[in-house]
């Protein structure tokens, strides 16, 4: 058989091709493959930590949106916060967001 190999997932069961999964790419590129010394030595998130981070971000954004809060989508403060500090840890950024939310939340609770 000389047909071209499929470029993405093939559903052996459903016979419908699906887009190549980001999870498939990330678990390979972040955690597998040959590691040889390079000139940029920086510790990247491995797939487990990245997943936790994505879940935290999604959970906090979803929860806030549920409450009708989405001010950050157009708020210059959020972008300026990122510029002022080197690279705030996730916890600090969430804390800053929470403090802002609680500050304005009091007005909305009626």
């Amino acid at each position, binding site marked *: *058989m000389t047909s*071209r*190999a*499929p*470029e*993405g*997932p*093939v*559903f*052996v*069961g*459903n016979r419908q091709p*699906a887009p*190549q*999964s*980001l*999870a*498939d*790419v*990330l*678990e*390979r*590129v*972040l*955690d*597998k*493959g*040959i*590691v*040889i*010394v*390079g*000139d*940029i030595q*920086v*510790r*990247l*998130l491995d*797939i487990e*930590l*990245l*997943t936790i*981070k*994505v*879940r935290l*971000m*999604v959970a906090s954004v979803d929860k806030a949106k549920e409450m009708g809060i989405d001010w950050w989508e157009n708020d210059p403060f959020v972008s300026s916060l990122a510029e002022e500090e080197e*690279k705030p840890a*996730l916890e600090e950024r969430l804390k800053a967001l929470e403090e802002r939310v609680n500050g304005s939340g009091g007005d909305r609770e009626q």
Partner: protein
Amino acid sequence: MNSDGATVLHAYGVVPASSPIELPSSGIDGAQVEVAEASGLVALVSRLDGTRYGEEVWRAHAEDPDWLAGFATQHQEVLGAVATTCDVLPFRIPGMYDDEARLLAVLEEEKELLRRGLEAIGGHVEWGVHIFLTDAPDEEPAEQPRTGRDYLRRRSEQAGSRERTAEARRTRVLDAYEAIADAATHSVANPPQDPALSKRSEPMLLNSAHLVPRDRKDPFFAVLGEVQDLLRGDGMVVEVSGPWPAYNFVHLATEELQA
């Protein structure tokens, strides 16, 4: 830090020196994909803008899922295209070098490891297999319990039945993995993917990777089809992705070294 700083070199992976390669038309950020040859190896590289991919930028985005995902996707696009026709040993990211001289020096240092890696995966591609539970068979409809004791007994029976079903399912998935692995040269089972990344709500029962000779693709897919036929009745679906460069089998390079 290199003297220039304007460009940095990204290495995607290495291919055997003898191979004819079809280079993709572009790589990360639209940069050209080029080759750098040394020590009997050919590295696939792109020169990138230092202000976008230099050390400070990597540090700033080391924990940025979107940025990393963007880079990773483009990195794999190049490697995936090459892998369809050529053996390639993929590098993990960042894979960044100040310049070509630095990369060639590292390739020289690591040439044994890289040669053994290419040898181990030579003539093979990687296929990924997932088994999802899409349709759990219905539990038997319960008669209305007449007493409290009946109710508790019914609950206990159902829990036991679910546990036995789950156990039976695990056994069938293990059997499926072994059957698939029989059709491959090397196989590995990885932890199931988190739905936050996979965006799939169905439980993932198997997440495996298989190193299969290029000319054995049809028998491998035939086994996948047989496994799918056997599992369909239990509400499980088999999915395959690839062909991938042999990301999951680079450890064979060091095992060869130790042999």
